[in-house]
C-alpha cells in the first residue's frame, strides 16, 4: 500500500481510541459538569489490566509475575471492569469534594497511580514496561489487511460508544445530570440525588476509559508508565474543548481533529535533528490552537444544543 494511506489509516485508528476517551470525558465533564483532571487513571488501569492478562509470561530479564496469555476478549472485559472498579473506589473519597478541590484530588490520584505503575515491578515490570503484547488474530492476516481490519474494529468500537453515550445523555438520566450541572440545589428539589448520580456517571466514565486503555495497548503492543502522565488528561480535555464541550458530536470530531493536528507533521520526512524541533513545535501548535479556540470559539467547533427552549 502507499505510504501515505497507511499513515492516515493508522492515525485515524489511534484517533478512535481518543474518541472513546473523549466521549467518556464528555459525559462526565460536559454533561454532568464535573471537573475531572484524572481521567488518565482509569485509562491506565484499563491498559494495565489488558496488558497483564494478554501479555506472555515474563522472560528471564523481566520482573513481572503475571502474564497469562489469555484471549484478548477477557483482557478487554477485565479492562472495562477494572476501570469501573477503580473509578468507584477513587470516587468514594473524591466525590465528596467539588470544583477545584475535586479537580486537584483527581489529578493527585492519577499521579499516585502513575508512580505506582512505575515502581511495582512485580505487577507492571516498572519503568521498563511490558513489550511484545500480541495483537489478536494478527497471524491470520497479512499486515496490510490487518491494518484495515484494526481500523474497522476500532471504528466500530468508537461508533458504538458514541451511540451509547448520546442515548445516555439524552435520556432522563442524562437530563438529570445536566440539571445537576446547571443548578444543584434546584435539581435536589426535583428528587435528583447528587451523590448517587455523580458516582454512577463517574463509574461509567471509568469503564469507558478502561476500554480505551485496552484498545490503546492493543494498538501499541507495548505499555510503559510514561504513557499515563497527566498530559493525557490535558490532551483529552483539549480535544473536548476544541470539539465543543457538552456535545457528543463535538467530542467525536474534536478527538479526531486533535490527533490529526498532533500527528500530521510527523509524516514529513525530516532529518533527526529537525524532527526533534518539529515534535516540540507540534506541542506549541496544539497550545496555540487551544488558546485561539477558547478566545474566538469558546463553545468549540460544535457547541452544545440547548433543548426545550
Amino acid at each position, binding site marked *: 500500500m502507499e505510504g501515505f494511506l497507511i499513515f492516515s489509516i493508522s492515525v485515524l485508528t489511534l484517533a478512535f481510541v481518543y474518541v472513546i476517551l473523549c466521549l467518556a470525558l464528555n459525559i462526565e465533564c460536559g454533561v454532568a459538569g464535573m471537573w475531572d483532571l484524572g481521567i488518565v487513571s482509569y485509562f491506565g488501569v484499563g491498559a494495565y489490566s489488558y496488558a497483564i492478562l494478554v501479555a506472555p509470561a515474563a522472560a528471564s530479564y523481566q520482573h513481572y509475575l503475571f502474564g497469562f496469555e489469555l484471549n484478548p476478549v477477557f483482557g478487554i472485559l477485565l479492562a472495562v471492569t477494572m476501570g469501573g472498579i477503580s473509578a468507584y473506589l477513587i470516587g468514594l473519597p473524591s466525590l465528596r469534594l467539588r470544583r477545584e478541590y475535586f479537580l*486537584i484530588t483527581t489529578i493527585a490520584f492519577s499521579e499516585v497511580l502513575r*508512580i505506582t505503575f512505575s515502581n511495582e515491578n512485580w505487577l507492571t515490570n516498572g519503568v521498563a514496561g511490558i513489550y511484545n503484547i500480541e495483537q489478536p488474530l494478527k497471524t491470520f492476516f497479512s499486515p496490510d489487511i490487518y491494518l484495515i481490519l484494526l481500523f474497522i474494529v476500532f471504528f466500530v468500537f468508537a461508533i458504538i460508544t458514541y451511540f451509547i453515550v448520546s442515548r445516555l445523555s439524552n435520556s432522563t438520566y442524562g437530563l438529570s445530570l445536566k440539571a445537576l450541572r446547571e443548578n444543584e440545589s434546584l435539581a435536589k428539589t426535583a428528587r435528583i440525588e447528587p451523590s448517587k448520580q455523580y458516582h454512577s456517571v463517574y463509574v461509567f466514565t471509568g469503564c469507558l476509559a478502561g476500554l480505551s486503555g485496552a484498545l490503546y495497548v492493543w494498538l501499541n503492543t507495548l505499555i510503559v508508565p510514561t504513557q499515563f502522565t497527566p498530559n493525557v488528561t490535558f490532551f483529552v*480535555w483539549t480535544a473536548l474543548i476544541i470539539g465543543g464541550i457538552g456535545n457528543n458530536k463535538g467530542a467525536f470530531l474534536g478527538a479526531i481533529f486533535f490527533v490529526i493536528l498532533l500527528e500530521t507533521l510527523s509524516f514529513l520526512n525530516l532529518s533527526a535533528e529537525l524532527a526533534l524541533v518539529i515534535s516540540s513545535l507540534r506541542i506549541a501548535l496544539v497550545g496555540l490552537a487551544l488558546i485561539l479556540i477558547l478566545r474566538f470559539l469558546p463553545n468549540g467547533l460544535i457547541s452544545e444544543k440547548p433543548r426545550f427552549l
Partner: protein
Amino acid sequence: MDIFIYGLVTGSILLICALGFSMTLKTEGFINVAHGQMLMLGAYYALGLTYIGFPFIIAAFLSVLFCGFTGLLFQRVLFKPIKGNGILVQLFTSVGLAYMINGLVGAIAGKRMLSFDIPIARVIKVGDVYLVTPYEFMILVIVLITVLILHLFLQYSILGKNIRAVADNQELAKIRGINPDRCSDLVWFIASSLAGLGGIFLGILGAVHLNMGWQQIVMILSVTVLGGLGSIYGVMLAGLLLGFAMEFGLLVFSSNYRTAIAFGVIILVLVIRPEGLQSLWQSKGREN
C-alpha cells in the same frame, strides 16, 4: 537532623514555587497551569544568559526580571481579554499557554537534560554535624528574605493593600477607586518572577529539563490545596509541611514514592478538612 534540613530546603523551594501560583489564584480566581512552565522558563532564561557569557548571579537576577515581564506580557495579551469568561476558559487558556511555552523552549533548547555551570559545593560542617551546602544555605536565606518582603509589601504598602482588596472583593475595591487591571498586572509580574526564582533554585539543586514544569505543577497544586485555596500564609505553611512530610516519609517508604507521599497527604487532608490549613486560623463558623 539531616532529614530536618532536607525537609526545610525542599519545603522552602516548594513554598517559593507555590506562592506565585497562589497569588494568581487568589486575585484572578483561576488555576494557572502555565505557572509550572514559568518555573521552567526561569531556569532556561538563566541557562541561556550564562551561555552568552553572564556570570551566574547576574544571569539569575536578570532571568527573574525577564520572567516577570514575560508574565506581564501573557497577562496583557492572553488573560486580560478573556477575564470574566468563566474559570474553565481561563484554566484551559493557561493549559494552552503551558503547551506553547513548553513547545517553544523545547524547539530552541532541545530535549536534553541540562545543568547550571556552577562549581560543586562542599557541605558546611559545624563541629561534627554536616549541615547544608552553601547553595542550599543561600536558597534558604533568599527564600526567607523574599517571604519577608512579600509579607511587608502585602500588609503595609498601598499597592499591596490594593491587591488584597481586589482579591477579597473586586466590586468593592473598584468603588474605592482601585484599578483592578493594574493590580492584575502587578500580581502577574510578582507571581511570574517568583516562579522564575523557584525554577532557578530547582535547577541549582537538580537538573534543568523540559518536564520540570509539568512535574512541579502537580506538586504546586497540592501545596496550594493543603494551604487552603489562595491563602498565601496557608501556602507558606503547607510548603514547609509537605517538604517535611516528603523527607520524613522516606523513613517508611522507598524513595521512588517521594512525590506519591505528598499526594497521599493531600488526598487525606482534602477528605478530612477540605478548606485546607487556613481553616485552622479562620473563623470557626465556616466549618461544617
